[in-house]
Each structure stands twice: as structure tokens, then as C-alpha cells.
């Protein structure tokens, strides 16, 4: 536990180290948000309501998705991939700590810092300007955060699974690209899934991506009823189960591979 906090703290502080890094990241987030808002502003000035969505809905969707973006725990999976590629995974298996919690703490630390430095300030300004929609009741707020938490766990296991690919694949850089594309598309990163053609919407139900942040945000905006949300929470738990089981299975297979081939 102490190790966990220590690693978290280290990761957190490391993010503050380089002036250039902080500045560039802040600028990057600001510009990203500005581009998106400009586009929606332009669109909704001409067409005030599309598919029961107003400009304010879109801005809130954008802001919430942005604020929740860092709950997508890509870190542990990425760090794992790096360690496999450069071989240090062999050492990790000998050392007396749990690799998963080690990578998790680093990732949480870094994401927390990035959230505070880049994400939170930018979207707070956006919502201050355009107006934040509030949840219908305290119960709704609770359910929202529960959905977010489930999403965190789903993303952790998903990316951890993907992170293990270097055990079997030679070059994996395009896996990241495919991931990014899949998440962007079926996770509704830029455009809400309710705008998609039927075919794509149907596909999105078979993938875990919409359950990471999209469902939570959609519920927050009042487009999903409380009752329906219970079903969503259940589906999230199912996904967690599937991914966790897969992860454990693949990890065992990977360990066997290391033992046989020596890294």
C-alpha cells in the first residue's frame, strides 16, 4: 500500500517537472476544445436542434466526455507493453510486488496530475461560459459516478489486455492506432453515438467502448432513464467480468511463454 502511494506521488510530481511539457499540453487541450466548440457553434447556429440535441447539450457532452477522458486508464496497458518490448518484464516477474498495482498507481498518479493541470481548468472555463447542466437528483449523481467507476475498470482491463499483445506480436504500434480509432468511433469521443447510422449503433452494443464514458455521459444528460440505466450498469458488470477473466487467462498464458522462452 505504501509502495502504491509512493509510486502515485512520484508519477504525480514527475508530470510537473518540465515547463515545456506542461505548457504544450495545456495549449494542446485548449486548442482541441476550441476547435470542437467552434465546429458545434457553427453547426448549431444554422440548425438549432438536431436529433433532440441543442448546442448546450453538445457542449455539455463535449465537456463531460473531456473531463472523463482521463478515467480511460490507458496507462497500465501502455507501460506493460513497453516493459514487454524492452524485456524488463522478466525482472518484474521476479520482484516481490504486484505488477498490476504498480502500473496502476503510476498511471493514476499521472492521470490525476494531468487532470488537474490540463483538463479541469479548460473544461471548467467552457462550462462556466456555456452553462453546466445539472443531474436530476442526488440519486442520479450517485448512479452517474457508479457508471463512471465501472467504466474505469472496464478501460483498465481492456487496455491491459491489449497491452499484452507484444508477447505474441512483433510490431504493435498500429494496435494503438486501431485502439484510438475504435474508441473514438464506438466510444463516441467526438460525435455522440445517437447520431450514428443504425448499423454502427448496433455494432457499438457488441463492443465495450460505449460503456467506458459514453453511457455515463448520456445518462447525465438525461437521455437515458434511471430504469434503463440499471440495465446499463448490469451490462458494465458483465463486461468487467468478461475482460477480467480474459485478462487472467491471457496473463497465465503469457507467463508460461516467458518461462519457456526466457523472455
Amino acid at each position, binding site marked *: 500500500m505504501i509502495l502504491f502511494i509512493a509510486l502515485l506521488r512520484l508519477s504525480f510530481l514527475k508530470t510537473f517537472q518540465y515547463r515545456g511539457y506542461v505548457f504544450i499540453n495545456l495549449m*494542446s487541450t485548449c486548442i482541441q476544445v476550441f476547435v470542437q466548440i467552434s465546429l458545434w457553434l457553427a453547426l448549431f447556429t444554422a440548425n438549432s436542434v438536431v436529433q433532440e440535441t441543442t448546442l448546450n447539450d453538445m457542449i455539455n457532452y463535449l465537456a463531460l466526455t473531456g473531463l472523463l477522458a482521463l478515467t480511460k486508464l490507458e496507462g497500465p496497458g501502455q507501460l506493460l507493453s513497453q516493459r514487454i518490448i524492452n524485456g524488463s518484464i522478466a525482472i518484474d516477474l521476479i520482484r516481490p510486488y504486484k505488477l498490476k498495482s504498480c502500473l496502476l498507481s503510476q498511471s493514476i498518479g499521472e492521470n490525476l496530475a494531468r487532470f488537474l493541470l490540463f483538463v479541469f481548468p479548460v473544461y471548467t472555463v467552457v462550462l462556466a461560459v456555456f452553462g453546466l447542466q445539472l443531474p436530476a437528483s442526488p440519486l442520479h449523481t450517485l448512479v452517474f459516478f457508479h457508471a463512471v467507476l465501472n467504466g474505469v475498470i472496464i478501460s483498465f482491463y481492456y487496455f491491459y489486455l491489449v497491452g499484452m499483445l507484444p508477447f505474441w506480436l512483433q510490431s504493435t504500434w498500429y494496435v494503438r492506432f486501431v485502439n484510438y480509432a475504435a474508441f473514438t468511433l464506438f466510444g463516441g469521443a*467526438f460525435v455522440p453515438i445517437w447520431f450514428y447510422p443504425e448499423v454502427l449503433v448496433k455494432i457499438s452494443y457488441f463492443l465495450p467502448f460505449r460503456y467506458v464514458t459514453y453511457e455515463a455521459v448520456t445518462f447525465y444528460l438525461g437521455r437515458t432513464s434511471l430504469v434503463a440505466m440499471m440495465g446499463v450498469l448490469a451490462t458494465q458488470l458483465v463486461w468487467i467480468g468478461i475482460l477480467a477473466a480474459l485478462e487472467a487467462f491471457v496473463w497465465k498464458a503469457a507467463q508460461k511463454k516467458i518461462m519457456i522462452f526466457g523472455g
Partner: protein
Amino acid sequence: MMANLRLYLQGIKTALATRMAYRGDFIMSMLIMLLVELGAPFITFLIYENGASFPGWTMYEVLLIQGVFLLARGIAFPFYFGIVWNTINRVRDGTFDLLLIKPKSTLFMAIVTAFDAEDLGKFFGGIMLFGLALKRVPPPGLGEWLQFSAIFLVALVTLFGFALILAGLGIIWIGNFRVYDIFFTIINFGMYPTVIFSKAVQTIITMLIPIAIMGYIPAATLLGRPAAGTCWAVLASIAFLFMSLGFWRLMQKKYTSAGG
């Protein structure tokens, strides 16, 4: 002059040979690159499919803008835009010095060693998107084609200017790939008709950070409805090029004074 051209071609040959050493990866990554470029067209499609629109613009006219832009990048990225990655990587692992030690301009050496075959995916994508959109818009006349070609050349030159700035930043902000991210984000403004944005944004992306010149302005010219202030945009882009050349030189000087 001829010697330099031959050197550049030799650089391309070498880069291709290197890339072919991993044949399997190549097609896959070209496809991936192409897929990423379909983002803006997809959003455009969604917008129009859901009954909304950009006033005064049909879907295919917007796709034409994106096609022109993608085509411009499809020429720039393989042939010279790679100096950004090339510079960033070399400065980071110390091999930038190996360029300085050659009896040619460092910028030229950076270009020679920067050919990126994979980005040809953008080129093919650009041709396809451009062709697809062109079919569904009123066919342009000869005059429009000529003007379009001239402005398209300016677009290519502007992309070179951007490459110079990004590569130059890579010299002083060592190993910083976020710089590339920002550029990637800003060019999203170039995917849509500039006129839909606020006046302030319009001025910025036309005159200050010449993005409109890379998609909207040539496409509008081709469609026979040239954007207001096209001439100013062209002049601004050329000024931009000279400024970026100066920036690169400055950064190179900084490197040779600080030793990397």
C-alpha cells in the same frame, strides 16, 4: 542543382529500401493512416445524414474541401513533411549531428533522409476523396482548374512552412511529440468551409496561421466561388513560408550553440 536532385532521389530510394525490409507491416499501416483521415468526412456525413447542414454548402462540396486538403497532405507528408519526425528523433538520440557533418545544407539533409512511404496512403486517400466529391459537384471550367492549380501549389508550400516550424520546435523542445499533436488538431479547422466559423477564427486561419489556404480556398476557387480575400491569403502564406524558414535557421543556430 542536378546533383541535389539526384541526392534527393537517392534518399527516396534508400527510404523505400528500408521500408521494404518490413513488407508485411507496410500495407497495414498505410491502411491505418488512411482510416484516421476518414474522421472529418465521417463527421460531415453524419451531419448531413441527420438532416443538418452548413448553410450554402452541399455535402459533396464540403467533402471536396477535405479531398483537396488530404491530397495536399498526401503530397507533402511523404516527400518533405517527414522532416518533423526526422528532426525530433535525431535530436533526441544525438544523430542530428550526423546531418551537420555533411557538406550540404542541414535542412536539405533533413529532407533527404525524411521520405516516408507510408504517408502515400494519404495521397491515395486524397485522390479517392477528391475524385468522389468532384463527381457530385458542378464541373469546373479550365479557368477554375488553372487558378486551383496555382493555389494548390501555394498550399503545398504552406505545408512546408508548417513542417519547418514543427521541426524547428523539435530542436529546442527535445523529444516533444505533443507539438505534432497541436498541429494535427489545428488543421481540423481546415476540414470545413472557413466561412462557418466566427469572424475572429476566420481571420486567424486565413491570415495568421494559414490553414484555409490548404483546403477551403483552393476548393472554393475550383467550385467557381472563390473565397473573399483569396489574394491576401496567398500573400500571407508566402510571408508565412519566409518566416518559417527564418525560424528554422534560428533554431539550427541555437542547436549549434548549445550542442544538443
